[in-house]
């Protein structure tokens, strides 16, 4: 079965590979190239995934503008901003982690990963606080949603103080605030789900990093995980202004 098209390529045998090179790649370079290309492509699918949600959000925001503005007043800017800070910091610690892995600094890598892990948990903790606030104020769609805060803003003294211009919405318009919260929960929920997956993977990474797996010069996995983590942060960087900030004062 050997024929004119088949010639020996190079002279490497299986045992010249570094141990982390998978058998079906011709070189380490090809392996690194391939896996990071795959990761970028995966992130593209993620963009399409969130894209559906962003489109829906923008459409409904256009249709029910007053309802969306007033509903956004119900979000807690303080927690939102804090969480944005937390995430950006975690992106930084993650980037440091990748650098440490490249520099083969094992304990620094573990430290960075642990920090990222903790910051991720803090983010989820704060999300939990925000979600429970919504629950208490009856702003979770479906279950026991209440229009009170929108048909009668004065009843919501705290928010009313901050946004004294909020006018009572007619019931018809006020009902659309529920849609705002639906999208709020769907989008931040999907994002949180990505965080949970990320944090679980981080757990595994920390475990492996401690065994010295990523300080051998082979950092593809840390690298690709870093891309994922940054991507999830970037999604939040879009969510935060869209849900919390834009047109807040009109």
């Amino acid at each position, binding site marked *: 079965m050997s024929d004119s098209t088949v010639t020996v390529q190079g002279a490497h045998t299986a045992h010249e590979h570094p141990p982390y090179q998978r*058998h*079906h790649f011709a070189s380490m370079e090809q392996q690194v190239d391939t896996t990071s290309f*795959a990761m970028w492509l995966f992130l593209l*699918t993620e963009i399409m995934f969130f894209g559906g*949600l962003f489109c829906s959000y923008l459409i409904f925001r256009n249709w029910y503008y007053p309802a969306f503005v007033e509903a956004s007043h119900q979000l807690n800017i303080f927690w939102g901003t804090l969480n944005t800070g937390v995430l950006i910091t975690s992106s930084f610690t993650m980037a440091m982690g990748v650098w440490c892995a490249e520099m083969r600094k094992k304990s620094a890598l573990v430290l960075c990963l642990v920090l990222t892990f903790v910051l991720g948990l803090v983010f989820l903790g704060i999300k939990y606080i925000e979600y429970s606030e919504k629950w208490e104020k009856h702003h979770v*769609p479906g279950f026991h949603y209440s229009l009170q805060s929108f048909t009668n803003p004065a009843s919501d003294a705290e928010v009313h103080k901050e946004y004294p211009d909020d006018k009572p919405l007619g019931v018809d318009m006020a009902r659309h605030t529920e849609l705002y919260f639906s999208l709020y929960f769907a989008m931040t929920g999907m994002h949180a789900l990505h965080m949970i997956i990320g944090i679980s993977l981080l757990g595994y990474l920390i475990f492996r990093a401690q065994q010295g797996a990523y300080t051998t010069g082979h950092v593809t996995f840390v690298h690709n995980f870093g891309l994922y983590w940054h991507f999830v942060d970037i999604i939040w960087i879009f969510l935060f202004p869209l849900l919390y900030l834009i047109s807040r004062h009109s």
Partner: protein
Amino acid sequence: MSTDTIVRLPDQATARIPKVNFLSKENGLLSWLLTSDHKRIATLYLISITFFFAIGGTLAGLIRLELLTPQSDLMAADTYNKVFSMHGIIMVFLFLVPSVPATLGNFLIPIMIGAKDLALPKVNLLSWYLYMIAGVMVLYSMITGGVDTGWTFTVPLSTHYVNTNVITTGLAIFVAGFSSVFTGLNFIVTIHKMRAPGMTWFRLPLFVWSNYAASILMVLGTPVLAITLVLVVLERGFGIGVFDPSKGGDPILFQHLFWFYSHPAVYIMILPGMGVISEVVSTFARKRVFGYTAVAFSSVAIAVFAFFVWEHHMFIMGVSNYSTLVFSLLTMLVAVPSAIKIFNWSFTLYKGSITFETPMLYSFGFMGLFTIGGLTGVFLASTGTDIHLTETYFIVAHFHFVMVGGMLMAFLSGIHFWWPKWTGRMYPEKISQLAALITFIGFNFTFFPQFLLGTLGMPRRYAAYPAEFQVLNVFSTAGASILGIGYLLPILYLTWSLKYGEIAGDNPWQATGLEWQIQSPPLTENFTEIPVVDHDAYDYEWLEKKEKEVSSVG
């Protein structure tokens, strides 16, 4: 019909199946369930896809039996709804979408480009597990009450009115979606990064090109379907209202999101099939595919256009006339690259030295039936006629011509064509040709009457119908039983051939692809050494030269 087969080389007639090959390498269930060899995973897919096809086919049989008589006597209307919904869901998501890519694509793409495996072997195995999980979930939801929304999960029907397993099925399709995203992603990465030296883009077999295009669709379209189904599930579970007009949501938004995936999905289903046809036509006409570049680019063009036509599923939904006009024109544009393919295959056949082995028969079936399916699509792309024909049996006939007449023919063509490579043994030629013929006849008997029923106005998705439609329905049901035999035969004789088939040798068709230059069945890592490619795809002169060399040495 002429039945001359290609003359075998003498050494192939006495060949044995190589002792070491990917099938024999390891034994035991675990060696299969934990394999990362793309050929074994392809085999796993082949078995599971056949299984789901059998279930979907049985349901089709039940549908046709019910429609034998005008009354709904075999099953009640709501059972009927569940049966055709399950039939559609299983056929689309568990058979058509993965069929050629996950089986033949998985098996062939690495070999065709001279790689030892797909770029991400473990992800490949993960895809199969996701597929199986989805399959089990669908079966579970079928046993525990079924779904009756049709495969389109149309809201608000699916979210508010039906009382069936929408959540389980929706999540199942979500999971199946990820299986298909990962397969597509794996193919794209592999084709970009794993080509052997000398295997340039324009030396790629057209099968690789068409799977590449389909993969783009899988990667960009499927996530949108996934998020849409998540929203449907959330709507049902928590009443979030995104698609619910009573809360200000919009069912039309669902349609946009759903068809943004599901129109391209039609091409996810058909493009890989077209790739099969290119290979088969070239091999049995012994000519390079006419207009290779045009055929390659037409795949990509289809992939791109496919994203801009989704609205033609919504002509009757009160979208604006202006956008309807635009989408109507865009839809007709997609016909151009498809037509390019048909023309180029015909030119390839023209003056070729054609032989009529089974794969070629199925390919002819594909070309004929797909053309009819495509042309009737033009009626549906024109808004005027669409308004008359939509939701009638015309639609049912149209998509069965494209999907079953097209895709399934291509699938069978490909399975027969590469069977010798896959298993090392030939299928029995005579009975296979007979099966191809039976399928073709049965198919036309089944679905042609449905065009007539559609134009006469018989609506789809009803268990009962006015008595005047019965004659045509009887024809259709009779045809379906012929078709059923046509599908059963290959399952039987292919299984038989695993043990008793004639030994195939490396290159029974004297074809030029890299896959034919290695042993059958291949080694686990395909190539002992990575090949260096020095000729274009379908270069029969190169092959002849090589054969002379071999025989002068021997």
